């Protein structure tokens, strides 16, 4: 499509008022090709030719050669550069040459495994020779029991996920003897998602996997693929525990790409608030579709995706456009079949526009589109490029638009486009030596095979050493707590229950609620705005009247499907009649409403027990201990579509959810506050800025990801402004504990970050919260913005805190916590 014409069209609209802030043109790139040294087998060449592939891109050829030479590789070329072939070619080649050869594919989500299964079946389906040799099978939590035995025995390409490997495959490895004895390749796709908590767990799972492979005499080669991040080789290397060959020289051609930064118009003459980015995205989407393009809008929340879809559809229908039936919404929670259908119709070009959450950001194959609309800054540079990469034709022009929201971060990027385009994507950090994580995986490893401490391998290390230098003392501690037993130099698991079952690899439980549509509507009908809620939904009729239409994770169910909520699905409105917390079901009925609802959430962090106190930043209060984080939907607002008028408020009575974890807290003492007051600065503003910096800086000290941490500023707990940082994992994983031990270093990093930042009054790189996480089920246009904290107050506060601690700085920050406080 003609992108320049579309941009021009946007600027000639009656409502144009200078929203176009910047256009960056990324020039066209020619394709580069390379022949593999040894030609591919005839069957594979036939298959590629049938798909119009005459030559391999240079990076595909490099990946093939590396895999053939038994080098572990990580491929990190752009979206739609043919990354999948990079790992599929060597695997298909091996499977054709040796009928016994096996491969294991690990994807971070079940949806991706299904997508790849479909792709593999299509790839080999038309060719009887290949179809006989390539037998892929998905093995995950959804695989019916009846099929499991067959997949274990017969599939030579097993597609699964780390969670399944951890809880259901490795512990029962004798049943998988055929796989592990003949395993030649392990694919780790979307490796950039394995950072922080998930990464630490997955690194332990992969070590367990390598150990089992060795036991059965195989030494598989790892083929990893990653989205663009700053350090793919380092991340994959630490995760897998091997040196990786990085393949990042993208040989695929790319048409010219326009990147537009768009700032919605101010609402009033002197108003700082601007029109909603979602509203402008609706306009952009309609213009793009009418110009003949295929467009995707990425939103930060599920509700925003539903709303954009609804408004686009309504407006197109009002114009009697045939395009009205060719737009959809796509987000987490849709059932697999519905998602597959949308993906396929997007791929075939039948669907022209989709409003999606980042559920479409990962590598699901939907082809490439003409236009990607980023509705509000996605929070990270890496995500921005990942989403923008969804548009980008091989030869034709494409367009990405970042529509800024009201957040200071978005506005900063619009004022400083050079910052956005020059910024390197984020580092991904993974810590394979986290003792808390290892303490959960060593029992699992010992259950699988005894952990030997005597026999030395070629590298001089023993079996236990593959889990790092902390493994030996942790195993000792586990023995003392009777989880492991040492017999003749080997640790055995001292129980009969598979210990992996109770260990989740992710932040929280992955329980889901079903959203069930009760057909036939309500018997009474709503009179006078009152909703008749039936007492027992199953009394409404036979099972035929009930159908599951969607899922929602247990954590956010109370935000989305509380009684009387309007649940938006594919642009249509459903009224929630009942939320059954015990049965994990929400019953909804189809009801046309002219409003949607917004949950009013209350959250709190309560310090429940102090485990240790420290004078490292003396006399400022610094402590570490147990905290209880809870959140609850207490009410809901009714919001009129289009106008966003608040037309009513109702109470919600559902119990709070909570997370018991560990945290570190710091409260500047009176002297610091007085000194700041003297300088005309407010300590509380400084604490907010410090919190925003600390959430970014703590990962550097604790080797986790910002997403693994929570941080609040609160004065209820201690009666004065306090910064509380906590681990987002039940029981904690030692991140805030390290922040406690290394607080002086942490504060010094914060001070350096804010002092060295060249901005004037604060920016997302320093005091601004760079990765604000809105509730995923809310409309971001209804949330109030967060002001940029005062930079000077932040600097002064940090100077005062660092100054106080500089005397002891670096002297003995490793000493054990002082004054362990067992009680309250």
């Amino acid at each position, binding site marked *: 499509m003609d992108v320049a014409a579309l941009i021009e069209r946007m600027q000639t609209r009656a409502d144009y008022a200078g929203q176009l802030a910047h256009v960056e043109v990324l020039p066209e790139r020619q394709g580069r090709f390379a022949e593999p040294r040894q030609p591919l087998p005839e069957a594979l060449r036939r298959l590629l030719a049938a798909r119009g592939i005459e030559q391999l891109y240079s990076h595909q050829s490099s990946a093939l050669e590396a895999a053939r030479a038994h080098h572990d590789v990580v491929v990190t070329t752009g979206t739609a550069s043919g990354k999948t072939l990079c790992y599929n070619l060597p695997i298909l080649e091996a499977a054709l040459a040796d009928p016994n050869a096996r491969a294991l594919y690990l994807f971070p989500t079940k949806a991706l495994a299904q997508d790849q299964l479909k792709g593999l079946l299509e790839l080999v389906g038309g060719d009887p020779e290949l179809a006989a040799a390539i037998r892929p099978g998905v093995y995950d939590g959804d695989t019916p029991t009846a099929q499991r035995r067959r997949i274990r025995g017969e599939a030579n390409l097993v597609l699964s996920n780390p969670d399944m490997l951890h809880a259901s495959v490795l512990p029962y490895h004798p049943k998988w003897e055929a796989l592990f004895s003949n395993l030649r390749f392990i694919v780790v796709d979307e490796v950039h998602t394995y950072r922080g908590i998930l990464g630490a767990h997955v690194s332990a799972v992969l070590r367990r996997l390598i150990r089992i492979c060795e036991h059965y005499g195989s030494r598989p080669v790892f083929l990893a693929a990653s989205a663009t991040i700053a350090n793919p080789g380092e991340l994959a290397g630490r995760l897998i525990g091997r040196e990786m060959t990085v393949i990042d020289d993208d040989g695929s051609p790319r048409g010219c790409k326009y990147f537009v930064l768009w700032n919605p118009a101010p609402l009033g003459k002197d108003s700082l608030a601007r029109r909603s980015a979602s509203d402008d995205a609706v306009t952009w989407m309609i213009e793009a579709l009418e110009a003949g393009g295929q467009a995707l809008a990425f939103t930060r929340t599920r509700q925003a995706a539903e709303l954009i879809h609804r408004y686009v559809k309504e407006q197109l229908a009002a114009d009697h456009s045939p395009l009205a039936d060719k737009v959809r919404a796509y987000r987490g929670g849709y059932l697999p079949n519905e998602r597959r259908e949308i993906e396929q119709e997007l791929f075939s070009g039948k669907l022209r526009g989709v409003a999606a959450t980042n559920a479409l950001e990962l590598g699901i194959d939907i082809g490439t589109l003409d236009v990607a609309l980023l509705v509000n800054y996605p929070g990270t540079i890496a995500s921005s490029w990942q989403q923008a990469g969804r548009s980008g034709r091989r030869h034709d022009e494409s367009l990405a638009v970042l529509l800024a929201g009201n957040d200071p971060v978005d506005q900063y990027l619009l004022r400083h486009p050079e910052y956005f385009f020059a910024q390197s994507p984020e580092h991904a950090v993974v810590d394979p030596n986290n003792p808390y994580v290892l303490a959960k995986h060593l029992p699992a490893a010992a259950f699988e095979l005894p952990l030997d401490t005597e026999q030395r391998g070629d590298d001089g290390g023993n079996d236990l050493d593959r889990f790092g230098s902390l493994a030996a003392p942790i195993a000792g501690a586990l023995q003392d707590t009777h989880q492991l037993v040492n017999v003749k130099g080997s640790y055995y698991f001292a129980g*009969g229950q598979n210990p992996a079952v109770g260990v989740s690899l992710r932040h929280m439980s992955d329980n889901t609620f079903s959203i069930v549509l009760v057909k036939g509507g309500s018997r009474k009908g709503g009179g006078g705005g009152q909703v008749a809620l039936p007492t027992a939904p199953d009394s409404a009729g036979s099972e035929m009247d009930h159908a599951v239409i969607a899922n929602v994770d247990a954590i956010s169910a109370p935000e989305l499907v509380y009684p009387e909520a309007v649940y938006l699905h594919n642009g249509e409105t459903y009224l929630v009649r009942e939320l059954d917390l015990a049965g994990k079901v929400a019953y909804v009925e189809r009801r046309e409403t002219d409003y949607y609802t917004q949950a009013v959430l209350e959250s709190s962090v309560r310090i429940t027990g102090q485990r240790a106190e420290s004078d490292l930043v003396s006399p400022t209060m610094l402590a570490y201990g147990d905290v209880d984080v809870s959140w609850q939907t207490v009410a809901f607002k009714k919001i009129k579509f289009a106008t966003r008028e608040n037309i009513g408020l109702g109470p919600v009575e559902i119990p709070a959810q909570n997370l018991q974890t560990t945290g570190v807290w710091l409260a500047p003492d009176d002297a610091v506050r007085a000194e700041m007051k003297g300088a005309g600065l407010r300590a509380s503003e400084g604490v907010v800025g410090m919190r925003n910096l600390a959430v970014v800086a703590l990962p550097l000290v604790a080797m986790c990801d910002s997403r693994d941490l929570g941080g609040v500023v609160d004065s209820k707990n201690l009666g004065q402004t306090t910064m509380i940082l906590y681990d987002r994992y039940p029981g904690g994983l030692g991140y805030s504990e390290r922040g406690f031990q290394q607080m002086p270093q942490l504060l010094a990093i914060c001070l350096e970050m804010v002092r060295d930042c060249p901005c004037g009054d604060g920016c997302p790189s320093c005091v601004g919260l760079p990765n604000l996480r809105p509730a995923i089920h809310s409309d971001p246009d209804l949330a109030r913005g967060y002001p940029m904290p005062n930079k000077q107050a932040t600097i002064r506060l940090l100077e005062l805190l660092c100054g106080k601690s500089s005397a002891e700085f670096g002297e003995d920050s490793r000493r054990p916590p002082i004054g362990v406080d067992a009680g309250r």
Partner: protein
Amino acid sequence: MVDDILRQRLESLNRGPMPICTTALTAPSGSSSFTPPPVERSPQIYSGTIKAAPGLLRSGEVVVTDAGEHLRIRLSIDAIWPNGERLVATRLEHLQDLAAMSEQAIEPTVVLQPDFAALVAALPDRVLLLDLETCGLAGSAVFLVGLLRQIDGVPAIELLIARNYAEEQAILETLWQTVAGHDVLVTFNGKSFDWPMVRDRSTRYRLAARSAAAPMVHLDLLHHARRRWRKQLPDCRLQTLEQLVCRRRRMGDIPGHRIPAAYAEFVRTGFEREMDAILYHNAVDLVTLLDLTLRLAA
């Protein structure tokens, strides 16, 4: 959740060196040379004086295999089932008479099912009864292989015992050697539990070559018992059959669900009393299995 003692130990280990940090800060000295504290032994849990009567376990002898040592106990049936040996002999005779009759009869009045035909043909020398005790469900370790077979012309109980987790491979090794001389394997629910367990654990120790060479008929009595008694009995658990069909009661038995924990205690503390109870439990199971085999075959 991490329990408190473990948490304190982990806290002492959670001292990462300053990792990737672009700012040049002095790392705390010695942060990377952490030495683990000496391992403290937990005090003996049982300080009271529970008499560990010299029991079954003490009567065991050590067997040496290619895969290490384990303990073996042999018991006559009479030790568990008074007069059992004589009863078994009588029933065997009866069975063989029946088999002979059905062969001679032109219109056979009794038709043996194929499995039972194989059983009767193999009795008594080439039939092996098996019952395992394990640390838990699938994936966990086997610590006791209970066998009942003909030894020196009389049926006898043979218990192969792993005195700790390291001896599991040895008992499996001895099991495979024993299996080699038999044609029919008899179990109770062994098709779903005991035998897959033996196979999986053997695969785990790479004993697969042996397990492949075992062309045995496997007779799982659970299915036959269900067919015969489902209508008369509340359920068809082994102990129900023992009480209501065989009309025997156990004294001082350990409930099955407590066995894994009792074995874990035994490995950790060497405390024998409950272990003796487990051995007794397994031996009684085997005797009941024999009793049921003969009843069902007749």
